[in-house]
């Protein structure tokens, strides 16, 4: 099956690839423009084909189509890199269609641009996306609705690519909402499972609150700039008197929705109800970083409002800490990773808040590697155990699923900040920039960041130890579980995943280990190439403080100490004295229970927002405004006269009179207001 899909791939890709590389020397701008169009269109084509015909196609064909239409954009992105290398000049490719909307007052083109920032995002999305597609072929192999899954996944790729390629706020918003929609569809993929359907709904609604801010910000931009085009807005920003603080705070609200920050982070942990590859792709590597991307993209605006920046930094720091504390006590392996994602996103937000946008994007990239790896590896563990997600029923798995163990270890060490792995460099860069930002907020963010690094190290090693070490708590021959599709092959006990799943793990593990090389700071003998690469886009505003490499090394040492401390604590609690953690939990019952219930945020939200809305609705209805249709006598009436009699009866039921009374009162109110304002 998989071979077949590769055959398909080769058939289509090679001619296409030849075309791509042959024309390198003499390409015209026209070709590049078309290339840009192709990047999002290809996954969309995949979505259309699988969405319409997928039901009737064999699984091999479905996966071949999905993979083909994901690898082609990745090749095009590779081609863009080659163009960049060849030109050497700052990259700014633009593909403009005819005007999309031209209303009096403002107009928006349907346009894509690629600059250095976009290129980084494109590489992450297409590269990691392709790996996760491959993994899914194995992971979803026995699921109902295989075609539906891949159709949605390709749809997601399409919207995500539109999001990062767009050259205007409006088109970005289209992608923004589109990825939300695709994520809703994928979270609720097991729609016969109530919790999955509810999680999808929650994600959707919470994101709408963020969109409220985003839309409002867009309207303010239209009102003050008459345009939503990035170039126009950013180039006029310095000379326009606009309420930048309001705009930036509203944009930040939008970002907190998509990137799961306080106060809107509540949807992300629940989103883990979706299939694991979805968690890896959407809720770790790509979609949730859209908020960070957006803030970085709008850095020109944010730099004009120190207040908004400070708010962003504080939100990021607070989220990082809060999510890490919750992550310490979770038992569901995917939930630990989910809270860890929220926490890491907090770091990125914090980076943007102290003006270190490129450090934030650097962390986006490394996080995409190691978090996608962690999720996929967790999926492999879950797969091996026939659907079990509870870490209390794992343990001692390192020998039984060695590839998963080794790759996951790479991820755990990378995220925990083991020196010279990818996570170490990106996290250090953020902490360094925060410390040297020269503001009180920066110092504060740094302190919280270091403490969170310790917590991160602790809960990640807790996960690692509980899953792979210690005594085995695996329930053998676990044949019936909610993950019904795994029944067929879950019965023969714990097993390593097939190559189609482990190959992506291995590639991601390599990336998680060496991915930080591109951003090695000068203090460690590197050139911080990543940051310089992004300079053409993100340079303005924040001046990098020339701190001595001594400071940098000192700060790194502190972070490494935090890592070691977390590792040591986890080792003490879960390997040396496995019972201690339970005793501590008992002693600190109130704190433990607070964390276990995630600070009761969900309950408070439910009560305060959903409950009060429903109450208002009930009040609005309980008046005479809606008395409804008189119940009873529904059904056939015996005769025409009967119908007429019933009509006259209804006329006198008081119903119509009260409605007429409301009409009259409304009219009186309108007239009274008219005279009053006159």
């Amino acid at each position, binding site marked *: 099956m998989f071979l077949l899909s590769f055959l398909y791939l080769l058939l289509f890709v090679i001619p296409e690839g030849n075309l791509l590389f042959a024309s390198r020397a003499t390409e015209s701008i026209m070709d590049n423009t078309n290339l840009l169009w192709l990047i999002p269109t290809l996954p969309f084509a995949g979505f259309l084909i699988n969405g319409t015909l997928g039901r009737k196609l064999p699984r091999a064909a479905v996966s071949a189509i999905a993979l083909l239409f994901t690898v082609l954009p990745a090749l095009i992105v590779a081609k863009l890199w080659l163009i960049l290398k060849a030109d050497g000049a700052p990259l700014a490719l633009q593909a403009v269609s005819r*005007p*999309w*909307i*031209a*209303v*009096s*007052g403002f107009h928006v083109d349907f346009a894509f641009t690629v600059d250095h920032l976009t290129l980084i995002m494109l590489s992450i999305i297409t590269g990691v996306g392709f790996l996760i597609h491959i993994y899914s072929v194995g992971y979803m192999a026995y699921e109902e609705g295989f075609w539906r899954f891949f159709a949605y996944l390709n749809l997601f790729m399409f919207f995500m690519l539109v999001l990062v390629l767009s050259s205007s706020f409006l088109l970005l*918003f*289209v992608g923004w*909402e*589109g990825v939300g929609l695709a994520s809703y569809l994928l979270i*609720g993929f097991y*729609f*016969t*499972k109530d919790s999955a*359907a509810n999680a*999808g709904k929650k994600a959707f*609604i919470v994101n*709408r*609150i963020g*969109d*409220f801010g985003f*839309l*409002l910000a*867009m*309207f303010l931009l*239209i*009102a003050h700039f008459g345009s939503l085009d990035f170039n126009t807005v950013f180039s006029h920003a310095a000379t326009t008197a606009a309420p930048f603080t309001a705009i930036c705070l509203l944009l930040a609200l939008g970002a907190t929705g998509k990137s799961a920050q306080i106060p809107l982070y509540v949807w992300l942990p629940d989103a883990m109800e979706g299939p694991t590859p979805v968690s890896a792709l959407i809720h770790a590597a790509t979609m949730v970083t859209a908020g960070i991307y957006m803030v970085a993209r709008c850095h020109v605006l944010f730099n004009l409002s120190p207040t908004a920046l400070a708010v962003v930094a504080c939100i990021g720091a607070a989220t990082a800490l809060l999510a890490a504390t919750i992550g310490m006590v979770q038992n569901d392996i995917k939930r630990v990773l989910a809270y860890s994602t929220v926490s890491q996103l907090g770091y990125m937000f914090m980076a943007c808040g102290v003006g270190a946008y490129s450090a934030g994007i650097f962390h986006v990239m490394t996080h995409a590697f190691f978090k996608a790896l962690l999720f996929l590896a967790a999926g492999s563990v879950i797969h091996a155990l026939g659907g079990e997600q509870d870490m209390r029923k794992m343990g001692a798995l390192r020998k039984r699923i060695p590839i998963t163990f080794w790759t996951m270890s790479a991820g755990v060490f990378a995220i925990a900040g083991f020196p010279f792995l990818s996570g170490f460099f990106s996290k250090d860069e953020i902490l360094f920039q925060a410390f040297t930002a020269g503001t009180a907020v920066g110092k504060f963010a740094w302190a919280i960041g270091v403490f969170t690094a310790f917590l991160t190290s602790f809960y990640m090693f807790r996960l690692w130890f509980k899953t792979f070490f210690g005594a085995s708590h695996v329930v053998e021959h676990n044949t019936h579980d909610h993950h019904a599709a795994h029944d067929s092959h879950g019965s023969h006990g714990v097993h390593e995943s097939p190559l189609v799943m482990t190959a992506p793990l291995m590639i991601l593990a390599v990336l998680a280990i060496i991915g930080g090389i591109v951003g090695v700071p000068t203090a460690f003998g590197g050139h911080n190439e990543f940051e310089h690469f992004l300079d053409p886009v993100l340079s303005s505003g924040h001046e990098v403080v020339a701190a001595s490499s001594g400071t940098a090394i000192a700060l790194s040492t502190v972070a490494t100490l935090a890592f070691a401390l977390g590792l040591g604590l986890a080792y003490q609690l879960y390997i040396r004295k496995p019972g201690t953690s339970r005793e501590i939990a008992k002693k600190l019952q109130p704190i433990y229970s607070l964390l276990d219930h995630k600070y009761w945020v969900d309950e408070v939200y439910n009560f305060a927002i959903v409950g009060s*809305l*429903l109450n208002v*609705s009930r009040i*609005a*209805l309980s008046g005479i*405004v*809606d008395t*409804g*249709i008189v119940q*009873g*006598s*529904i*059904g*056939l*009436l015996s005769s025409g006269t009967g*119908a007429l009699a*019933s*009509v006259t009866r*209804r*006329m006198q039921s008081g119903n*119509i009179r009260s*409605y*007429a009374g409301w*009409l009259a*009162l*409304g009219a009186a109110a*309108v*007239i009274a*207001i*008219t005279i009053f*304002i*006159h």
Partner: protein
Amino acid sequence: MSTNLLALLPELVLTITGVLVMVLEPVIPAGKSRKPLGWLAILGSLLSGLAAFYQLQIVNAQGTLTAFYSTIQIDPFSIFFHLLIAAVVLVTLLGSLDYFESPITHAGEYFALVLFGAVGMMFMTSSVELLMVFIGLEISSISTYILAGFRKGRATASESSIKYFLLGSFATAFFLYGVALIYGATGSTSIGPIAAGLAITRTPTMAILAVAMVLIGLGFKVSAAPFHVWTPDVYQGAPAPVVGLMSTAPKAAAFAVLLRFLFNGTPMLHGHWILLIEILAVASMCLGNLGALKQHDVKRLLAYSSIAHAGYLLVAFTGTHQNAVAGACFYTATYAAMNVGAFLVLSQLSGFSERIRSIEDFTGLALKRPGMSALLGFFLLSLIGIPFTGGFFGKFYVFSGALQNGHVWLGIVGLANSGVACFYYLRLLAAIYSRPTSDSVAYIPVRKVTAPAAVALAATALATLGLGILPNKLVHLVERATPTTTAAVAVQPTQQ
């Protein structure tokens, strides 16, 4: 063709078709299917749309047409609404061809009433003489009163009809009173002379009161709060295809009248009516969305949603003149596409019996009818306002217009409301995509979708999608549609 005939062409086509349907009705023996009459009506609405298109060519070449002593004015504005109404009627007829189970009850009358109602709506949009508007309003109202009660023998249907009739007459009285007052204030009932008269009147108290009265009367027709009380009951009792029709076409016509009257007839009083519009808009959005949250009956839920959408539409009125007209026109069109589509799906699911009523009934629909569920889901997403659907651009257009004109708080209220709205749309959507329960749709026989209904569904879905992806086409048309007062100012009877 004389100017007079040309100006009436779409209405004439519809009237003749309606009369033909009624003449042929007795020719078909009792008990036989009335479908041929339906096809005739479909042909008529198609032709009338073509006639409106023909008018557009003429207007493009020669400029605005006036006819019948300046009673009728054919400009891009009225042609836009003619096309819209013809399209809604066409789709509704396609969707109702197989809606009535045999033996078909009064099917001939049904088709004729739809056509005559459309004549009234079209006259409302093309007329610049308020008396003529009133007659059009009455034709469309009477047709919809009867159509609302077409599921005869069902108690909800007769209640629906009688409620709509009594309250509707009450509201029409306000409109008529407003027309009388404006005549008292300006000495005319024609849009152009009204504007001219107001320009020289120094104490317009009477005119202000008249505007309030007209607003009340039309506010009822578009089901804007606080004149919305009838909507849920009437929608619940009326047949689904009829609700699709009456929640869009007569509303579009009433909004057209309101646009012409406010922006061309009484621009002098802008400062007075703008506040009223804002109050009505906020009340409609809030009451509509809050009311919908607790509903169980899907038709009632969509009724409250239509109240909220009337509120969004009223927000458009707060933009500058051109923005307001263009925004309102665009929103009307997108709302028509998605709402007619949603009700078409409802009507196709369980047909005349309408056994699938409550949200619980929809549980697990996706497993049984994936195609229909996807369509309904798409329309719901458009009603929420997700990009790539017409609903998004409608809202975007309307709210950005309001904000640009300085109505920031109105935009905030509107956006907050559209956030609240996704609660109840998602409730329905989530029910469709969840595990079926014992008494849900999975155990109710579902009808097969017939070819005409499939065409109608495809048309509405494509329109909703098209307006979301390529809104510019329509934007250009509606931006030209800003009605001008020039032609109507000519008070002296035109030489025919």
